């Protein structure tokens, strides 16, 4: 999902040109009405099933065969990817087959092979995995600095590629990966920016762009956790390999490795890119592990037209954990745990549908739940904290989009080439651009977010303002 393909920051009135309030109200009213009629929980991630009603035997759409996936990098995140892949629908026409796994550390390979992917072929070298003709798609979950070599080789081998974010820890490497992803038009290249595939985003984007918040005032986001990035290991060599996040040469720091997802999400909602970033950083706790990266970071991103995004991250305190708040002249919207609430100003226009929506109390503010089915009938039970409109983790939706899009891309390219043997490459590119795909991050999203993350980390380390050069985003 490219939220802002042309980087048009709103319109010249700091408003949102793509849809209007009436469009949103029309959809929201339909959703509310359906929920009232059937008492059906209409989740944004299952629109067809929900809209079809309780009595409908919704027909599964015949899909291409599952894609054969190889996972490279089997530490914590790589194993989480394997677990989420295993949760994808297992019917023969859907999901993914994990046919290969790879890690150059034998114990990690053995552990993942035994526990998470028992039937997969095991490789200790990614080049061997890429040479396996049975592997159609690869997921790269290795340290950030190793992505470029693996991603370029995988794309050159004709594999679909899901590359974890940030794409790289240098702008040049990020550009090289993004360019290779853009140019490999026959396959899917998806940066691991999970929010882009989350159904909550698909639901909220038209709402935000309908102008329900009024003019943007500012954005605030935080990522708070009480943890240490340090990982114990049986020997110094393994310890160094595992703790690559702690050193500036191999890591993009807290704002790069963790904050990138919020940065990307906010750029998506604001439909633009900041022009400058000012950073601050400090190491509060006393560590005995020779780490270089700060444990606490703040950054201010300056978007056009005076809209600033305040971002703070720490691993020293978990208070309020992670959330994003968008402040507008009419309302504020808070996104938290992939739930969202609207807080209207006293003089804000009535939207109409909010009468039917769930209202939750936050201290002395009333938040209107922004969920497609947020009718009183279906959502009054439980607290704001226990109310969980989505069944899966964000990673699940990102992998679902990747495997489905890769499977469809494979058959679409084959069908096209079979039926149009004389057509040139540009005709195929044009054809593929016109096809519907599940929402997912593009090479452009990955490059922009990575450059912003790298720049923010540099600004934070130097505690200075950094003007963002447009050339950093060009390939």
């Amino acid at each position, binding site marked *: 999902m490219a939220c802002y393909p042309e980087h048009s920051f709103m319109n010249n009135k700091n408003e949102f040109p793509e849809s209007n309030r009436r469009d949103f109200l029309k959809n929201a009213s339909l959703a509310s009405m*359906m929920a009232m*009629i*059937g008492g*059906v929980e209409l989740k944004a991630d299952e*629109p*067809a099933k*929900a*809209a*079809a*009603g309780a*009595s*409908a035997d*919704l*027909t*599964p*759409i*015949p899909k*291409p065969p599952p894609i054969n996936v190889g996972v490279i990098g089997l530490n914590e995140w790589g194993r989480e990817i394997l677990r989420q892949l295993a949760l994808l629908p297992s019917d023969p*026409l859907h999901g993914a087959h994990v046919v290969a796994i790879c890690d150059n550390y034998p114990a990690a390979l053995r552990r993942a092979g035994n526990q998470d992917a028992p039937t997969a072929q095991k490789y200790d070298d990614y080049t061997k995995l890429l040479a396996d003709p049975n592997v159609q798609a690869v997921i790269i979950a290795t340290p950030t600095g190793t992505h470029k070599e693996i991603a370029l080789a995988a794309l050159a081998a004709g594999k679909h590629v899901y590359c974890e974010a940030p794409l790289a820890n240098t702008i040049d490497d990020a550009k090289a990966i993004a360019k290779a992803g853009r140019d490999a038009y026959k396959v899917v290249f998806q940066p691991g920016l999970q929010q882009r595939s989350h159904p909550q985003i698909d639901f909220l984007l038209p709402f935000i762009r309908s102008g329900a918040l009024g003019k943007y005032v500012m954005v605030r986001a935080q990522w708070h956790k009480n943890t240490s990035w340090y990982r114990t290991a049986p020997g110094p060599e393994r310890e160094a390999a595992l703790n690559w996040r702690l050193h500036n040469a191999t890591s993009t720091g807290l704002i790069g490795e963790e904050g990138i997802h919020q940065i990307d999400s906010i750029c998506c909602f604001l439909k633009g890119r900041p022009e400058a970033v000012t950073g601050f950083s400090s190491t509060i706790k006393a560590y005995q592990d020779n780490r270089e990266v700060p444990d606490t970071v703040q950054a201010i991103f300056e978007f056009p037209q005076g809209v600033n995004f305040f971002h703070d991250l720490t691993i020293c305190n978990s208070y309020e954990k992670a959330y994003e708040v968008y402040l507008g002249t009419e309302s504020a919207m808070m996104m938290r745990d992939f739930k969202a609430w609207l807080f209207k100003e006293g003089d804000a226009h009535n939207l109409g549908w909010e009468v039917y929506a769930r209202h939750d109390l936050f201290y002395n503010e009333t938040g209107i739940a922004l969920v497609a089915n947020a009718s009183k009938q279906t959502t009054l039970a439980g607290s704001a904290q226990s109310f969980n409109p989505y069944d899966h983790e964000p990673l699940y939706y990102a992998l679902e989009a990747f495997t489905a899009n890769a499977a469809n891309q494979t*058959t*679409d390219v084959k*069908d*096209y080439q*079979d*039926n*149009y*043997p*004389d*057509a040139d490459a540009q*005709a*195929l590119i*044009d*054809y593929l651009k*016109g096809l*519907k795909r599940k929402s997912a991050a593009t090479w452009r999203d990955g490059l922009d977010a990575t450059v912003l993350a790298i720049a923010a980390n540099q600004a934070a380390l130097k505690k200075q303002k950094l003007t963002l050069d447009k050339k950093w985003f060009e390939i």
Partner: protein
Amino acid sequence: MRILPWSTAALALWVASPLHLGAQTRYNPQPSGTSVRIDGTSTAHDWEMEGTVIGGFLEIGAGASLDKAQGTPAGLQGDKLPAKAHVIIPVSKIHSKADHLPEVMDGLMQKNMKATDFPIIEFTLKELTFKSPHAAGEAFHFDADGELVIAGATNKVNFPITIEPLEGGKIKVSGTAAVKMTAYGVEPPTPNFGLGLMKCGDDVKILFDWTLKEKK
């Protein structure tokens, strides 16, 4: 007199036909200017599905040619234009144009057309009859007779087409075929969008523009 086996006789006739004298012109499909649309009705509203992939080939027999400036195609045998065509439309590449939940209609149509077992719609041309008079400068009008295969069921069909010669060795074949879904064992879809069943009508029209280019 020695009687030739049936298959040998048929082969002799086939080889002797103008299509197989070794100088026929073959055309391959081009993506630009190619589309197929299915128009249907229902108890609620009309519906459309659309695709942009039509594969296969068209061959025009030796001595036959289409020049828009001429009153009739060259090489006609009586009123028949010697031609062969095999048309392939992947079912999975035809999608609903509905604004609301198009995936529901896609899924139902693919299921009812048994797309897993029969992933393509096929048409094999048997006869191409020239319809005169032809106005110089316009597309040629023909009646196409052939066999249409949908969901594994075959029926003889007849429908009007036009063939328009274009620049650069290209031609555009356009036409509309009226089809009853049940004639092919395809149950008309009954999508449920939550406010009651919508029953699609049995009759649909398949409209197509198929652009091809001469293979050199």
